[in-house]
């Protein structure tokens, strides 16, 4: 297949669940995994006569997401009804936004595997409510409906067709997820459905600037399927065109088990949603001052933080990237540095011991930042060896406690006292007369051997920096 003769063009529509306690238009809980149809009320059940009331917290989070994505937030936006029939859509329409969305014209930069830093255009961010869930496999020959999810607040983020490969689409999504998690807008957990993505895929002759006919790919349920699903669709289109066929606008469903796509519906069968302004809700009016306030409370975003870590702490891009991948880790790293640790050592400790320990313990950062700074200080001062410090870290992680006290209890304090060191040196030199003779004969590289023996004899307590001096003096005799 001559895939290289073709350029892939991808645009993404991402639905992100806002991290609110209650639903978009009622007070019901948004808790995931509750028994079916327990988080419901007349409003989210769409009972006759019930009316929606917007959740202010959801609007606030949506605006924060929009400003984090560099969008223009509109002081006046309009809710609209998207009409279609489906059993898990209790009102027969979804309250969304249509021709006057909350925010437009933003962008998000991400690192492309092929093109370096790429700025993806964000066409719009709008607020809407989620539908319920249809369960087709619970009862034989019947579909069950769970409306716990109905009315959960979402934002939809629509990009320009700015991605040139499935890999880029994935890189953008990971960056988007990182930004939204930083801002505290959403958990962005694809497996729990708090982040869902639909992709518009088209192909064109390499070098062409016109857009090809696009197909929408739905049902991509995990980050790990993004590349696969888009690659399958891209390959399908290339094969179709190379066979002499044409692409017709359609919606394709991805099946992760078979790694294939199948036609869900063609354009002719596409639904007419009959959008019109939601008469149950006045236009959403936000004061410019309030919007500016939301911008003001935004935390430093990952890209900015990464650059700052490079310039402020002298870290390389890669380490800065690892440390800023999650806001909690970045904050932790900075606390360690602020507690007095040398930035580079702190970085190595956080990327090594801290993240390793977190991985085994539900992402918890178990050692307080001040304690880690204390451990690093013990190493720097020569009180504890690196090996000893790791033992101290593990102990503090498991049981807590002051690092020095723990180090003493573990017996890993290094001895720099010349009197005690001299005894170990004497023991070692006496025990290895042959090596001592060779050293005296000019084989100075044997020093490492003697230091090792001193460490061994002292059971690691000897200060490896103080030992060579004493050894040299003793061997010179």
């Amino acid at each position: 297949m001559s895939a290289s003769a073709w350029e892939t063009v991808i645009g993404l529509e991402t639905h992100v669940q806002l991290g609110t306690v209650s639903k978009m238009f009622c007070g019901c809980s948004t808790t995931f995994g509750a028994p079916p149809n327990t988080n419901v009320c007349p409003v989210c059940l769409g009972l006759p006569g019930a009316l929606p009331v917007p959740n202010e917290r959801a609007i606030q989070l949506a605006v924060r997401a929009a400003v984090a994505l560099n969008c223009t937030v509109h002081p006046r936006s309009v809710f609209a009804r998207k009409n279609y029939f489906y059993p898990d859509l209790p009102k027969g329409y979804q309250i969304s936004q249509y021709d006057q969305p909350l925010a437009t014209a933003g962008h998000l930069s991400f690192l492309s595997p092929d093109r370096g830093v790429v700025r993806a255009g964000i066409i719009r961010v709008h607020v809407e409510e989620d539908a319920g869930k249809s369960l087709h496999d619970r009862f034989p020959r019947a579909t069950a409906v769970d409306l716990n999810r109905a009315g959960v607040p979402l934002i939809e983020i629509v990009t320009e067709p700015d991605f040139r490969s499935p890999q880029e689409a994935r890189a953008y999504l990971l960056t988007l997820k990182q930004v939204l998690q930083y801002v505290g807008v959403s958990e962005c957990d694809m497996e729990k459905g708090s982040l869902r993505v639909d992709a518009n895929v088209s192909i064109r002759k390499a070098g062409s600037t016109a857009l090809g006919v696009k197909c929408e790919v739905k049902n991509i349920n995990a980050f790990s399927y993004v590349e696969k699903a888009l690659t399958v669709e891209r390959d399908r289109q290339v094969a179709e065109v190379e066979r002499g066929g044409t692409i017709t606008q359609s919606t394709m469903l991805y099946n992760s088990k078979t790694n294939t796509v199948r036609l869900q519906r063609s354009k002719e069968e596409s639904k007419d949603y009959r959008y019109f302004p939601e008469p149950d809700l006045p236009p959403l009016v936000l004061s410019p001052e309030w919007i500016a306030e939301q911008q003001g409370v935004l935390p430093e975003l990952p890209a900015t933080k990464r650059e700052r870590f490079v310039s402020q702490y002298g870290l390389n891009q890669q380490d800065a990237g690892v440390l800023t991948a999650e806001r909690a880790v970045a904050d932790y790293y900075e606390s360690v540095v602020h507690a007095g640790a040398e930035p580079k050592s702190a970085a190595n400790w956080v990327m090594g011991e801290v993240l390793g320990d977190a991985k085994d313990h539900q992402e918890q950062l178990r050692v307080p930042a001040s304690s880690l700074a204390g451990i690093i200080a013990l190493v720097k001062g020569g009180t504890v060896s690196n090996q000893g410090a790791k033992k101290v870290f593990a102990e503090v992680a498991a049981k807590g406690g002051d690092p020095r006290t723990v180090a003493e209890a573990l017996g890993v304090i290094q001895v720099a006292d010349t009197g005690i060191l001299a005894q170990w040196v004497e023991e070692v030199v006496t025990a290895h007369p042959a090596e001592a003779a060779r050293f005296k004969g000019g084989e100075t590289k044997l020093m490492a051997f003697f230091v090792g023996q001193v460490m061994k004899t002292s059971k690691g307590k000897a200060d490896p920096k103080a030992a060579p001096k004493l050894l040299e003096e003793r061997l010179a005799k």
Partner: protein
Amino acid sequence: MTEVEALASAKATATRLGKAKRLNALLTPTTVVRKSLLAQAKEAHPSGVLYGMPVALKDNICTLEFPTTCGSKLLEAYQSPYEATVVTKLKDAGALIAGKANLDEFAMGSSTEHSGFGRVLNPVDRTRVPGGSSGGSAALVGAGAVPAALGSETGGSVRQPAAFCGVVGIKPTYGRVSRYGLVAFGSSLDQIGVLGRSVHDAARVLSVISGRDPRDSTCENRDPLRLPTVPERLEGFVIGIPKEYFPVDLNPGVRRACDRAIRALKDLGAAVRDVSLPHTPYAIPTYYVIAPAEASSNLARFDGVRYGNRADGVTTLAELYRQTRGTGFGPEVQRRILVGTYVLSSGYYDAYYKKAQQMRALLAQDFRNVFDRGVDLIFTPTTPTTAFKAGERTKDPVSMYLADCFTAPANLTGVPAMSLPIGRVKGLPVGGQFIGQPFLEDDMIEAAYALERAIDGTEEA
């Protein structure tokens, strides 16, 4: 009123409702109402301003005591698990809920002949319609079974039946009364209104049900309406008479009754002025785009999946929808859903829905122009004719729709309006309409108080 008197009121109401049974105005069985009224009388708040007062409710207002059918076979046994805000407010004021009144299915109609549970008879002349869609509420008040009833308006459904049955009907400003628990028809037009045997009865019930409700985003954050005192004179009032509401083919009896009312207003000291509302003829076409558009969406939820009657023996989802809705909805409801779906469709939206919204803005501007020039109130006939014969217009929907030509403008523009009896023509009641400025219902009610005292509303014009 004492508890004993409240119980007596409950019993007497049940008896009167029983006597009015032949009108088919009440959907709740008399025995059920009697039992409920007695229970309510024992529990009612004696300190409430409506203590012991029976109020019937149009059956598109959700109640816990009785099913809420909307006059539709589809919701024949639907029991709401919650009650409308207006119902809670009535109960808090000590009122007794006197059952559910018949209506055109989902409030769509102008004669209450489109109910899934049979037509309602006009208490003045049983061969004639009571108007609609709040025909059951108007008939119960007209028959003297209750002093007041709640109705709902989308295009005149309180004022038009009030005029046909010889009672008072008030449609408050859009946003004055909470719609929470009113089954939606045209959400941007719907407003709960009151029918009463007198201006005072209607006004005091309106005062109780009005005011803010955090559950309805379109309900204004305002205190309840304060009742004006009954004025001796109307000096200082400027009342506009719009020529578009007095066309050459206006029923001569209706014209005579209006002329007499206008003379009475002048005698009371009001300044009467000719005004123009030039876009009035477009109100009905505009209304019959917007109301069906919103209805087609509002009624989508009645799909047989979660509640209401569901078609039996279907095997596919599409069939479930088609059968449930095709057999559950009556022909007028189906007609409006079809029209509404059409005008919102891709390619037709701009030509119909968008145009209608533009016309709606022009209609609102008409009213502003008049009120900005020092006019306090507008006076018109409520309807172009008196109550028509049952069956007379059912085969011609457009002639039925034209029964709302003088009432729909207030719904399209949100302004308050009310109808009160101003005389009779060949024994049939004629309604006169006041149209007021937004949230100035008190001015409108004050003028109505004075006019009600100045003329005999039951006298032949």
